[in-house]
């Protein structure tokens, strides 16, 4: 799958605080994500994966290093540039309950996407059509959702609606920050399936942030393992998970319970 570069970083670093309180959240990492790739960034809490994600999204600025988008250095200084950039990269966050403005109806979320895609002046019927399509993409019925408030939905439905939002926006890159960690296992499958559909049907690049190495293995093409701000290992999922090289990766895998293999408790 040698494809063109979508997002890449060189020496990307993020430092929080000054002096004694200085913490290096992301420490000179390099990465290349390709178009249409399903990438997982795996790390435990405090590994800097969420900070990296926010930098990729342009929500926070990198302290050092350079992020390139579609082969060109990313320019997101001004508001306009940011707006343009955000048409190409979007996100789904961990907690569906906090991802919604509880004061807005569900329609508002979707209408906002249509507006962002320049469909502000479309007739309302057209908009409904688009929204219905988006909802059906995530197995939701727009008629049942319209005029409802987010708190009337279950967590799984909310997260699916988030994906519907992405479907409407059709960005080049989707950054999914632990989208299933707050969701029950039964609904998780649906979410994962829809993410795969986004990649397969729209050709989106998906950057999947997770602490669950099993999940990363299950879903992604490429896996990046992060430890304390560093990328300690990366490569195709099969290789990294089944034949890990880095000590950290090995430990991570051995610490996770399995069902077919023996879970060795003596190693702790």
């Amino acid at each position: 799958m040698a494809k063109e570069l979508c997002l890449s970083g060189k020496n990307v670093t993020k430092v929080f605080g000054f002096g004694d309180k200085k913490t290096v959240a992301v420490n000179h990492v390099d990465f290349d994500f390709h178009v249409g790739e399903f990438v997982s960034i795996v790390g435990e809490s405090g590994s800097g994966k969420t900070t990296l994600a926010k930098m990729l999204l342009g929500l926070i600025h990198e302290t050092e290093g350079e992020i390139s988008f579609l082969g060109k250095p990313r320019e997101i200084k001004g508001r306009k540039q940011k707006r343009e950039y955000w048409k190409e990269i979007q996100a789904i966050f961990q907690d569906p309950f906090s991802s919604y403005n509880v004061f807005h109806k569900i329609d508002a979320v979707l209408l906002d996407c249509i507006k962002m895609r320049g469909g502000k002046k479309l007739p309302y019927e057209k908009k409904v059509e688009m929204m219905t399509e988006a909802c059906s993409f995530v197995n939701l019925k727009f008629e049942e959702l319209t005029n409802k408030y987010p708190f009337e939905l279950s967590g799984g439905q909310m997260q699916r609606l988030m994906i519907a939002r992405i479907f409407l926006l059709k960005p080049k890159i989707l950054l999914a920050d632990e989208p299933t960690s707050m969701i029950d296992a039964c609904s998780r499958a649906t979410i994962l399936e829809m993410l795969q559909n986004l990649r397969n049907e729209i050709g989106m690049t998906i950057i999947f942030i997770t602490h669950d190495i099993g999940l990363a293995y299950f879903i992604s093409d490429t896996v990046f393992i992060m430890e304390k701000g560093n990328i300690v290992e990366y490569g195709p999922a099969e290789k990294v998970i089944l034949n890990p090289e880095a000590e950290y990766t090995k430990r991570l895998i051995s610490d996770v319970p399995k069902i077919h293999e023996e879970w060795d408790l003596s190693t702790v």
Partner: protein
Amino acid sequence: MKHILSQVFHSGKFVVGFCIFMSILLLMIFYPIFNPGNPLQIVSIGTFAEPGIYVSVYDAVDSDMNTLKLDEAPAKRLDSVLKSEDRVKMVMWFDAAGIPVDNLSIHDTEALLTLWEENYDATIRPEGMTKADRNYFQRLDGNLKKVIVTHDKVLARQDPSSSELSVIRTIEDTDYVNIKKVANVKRLPLGTDNFGRDVLKELAAAIKTSIFIGLVAGSIATLIGLTFGLLSGFIGGLVDDFIMFITNIFTVIPAFVLLILISYSIGQDQRGPTTVAVVIGLTVWTWTARAVRSQVISLRNRDHVNLSKLSGHNLFLIIFTDILPYIASYVIMALILQISGAILAEAQLSLLGLGPKTTEVPTLGLMMNWSMLYTAHLNGYWWAYFPVILTIALISFSLNLMNTGLDQVFNPTLRD
């Protein structure tokens, strides 16, 4: 919205607070309608007329009279000036003046009065009797003379040029006037104050001013606090540091001291209710700023804000749609507290003589100030200050109660 309202009105505390506050508001709105006119108009000459119904004597004597034969009338009349302690004192006078009082019962009114009529002499200065006592007996004597003689009273008019008197009518002790027939009857439910103003009317107007001050001061404080809190919390960084520096300065200096200093330096002739309200508003915003800031900081990291950013919304849109609605309940609660605080602050300031310029508008604090300056509290003119204190207490109590009620609704951790 409807849902929130219905929830709010399910809170017992809120409803009680709301009812109290509404009744105060109703008093404020409707009393002036029933009793129009300038609340600062001086209606009584002299200070502190007691609460009650005042009947114009001038008109009463001209009204149609009915004759009522009431057996108890003379006794009542007498009782109004001759109480049992007066009887005891009369005996004391007889004693001091050396009049034998053997076999005299103080309940034997007739004997007592006869003896008094025969013997009392204002010029006698019995040994050991104080002047206060002598004055007392003179007053008693005067009062007795008025009631024990049941001759008709003659009403006469004086000719201004010749000073001659012409009898208009005689008034008998059985003459009564229906109060409805008297042209001028003034009800003063709370009497008059030191200036002779109708206290209830003034109170209604004062509530209005005080609530105005509360609203203006509360709005200013909330506006400043909200703006600072939003900017500080949402933008962060240097802006946050700077705003928090100012906020801390204001927090460290006790607001009331600041208030006193500012009010003092403004000078009395500049202090209208609006100025006082602005000054109060400018000194008490810190609490709101801090509360809003901490709320905003926790909200700032919520994903829906991030998502809103990713949707390309600008700062103001995000603040207005994604931040403000979330903190609206806090802000409203803060506003309620600020209003109640401002009303109290005005009362305190005015009590110290630093309130709004007097006598253009009444405020609750000014009413207290005046009644205190006239030592109403030492002399038992309760109607001049107690209703004011009660009103202040009720306003503050009801607002705080509403706030607690809202807190229960908006802040689920306090739910049981």
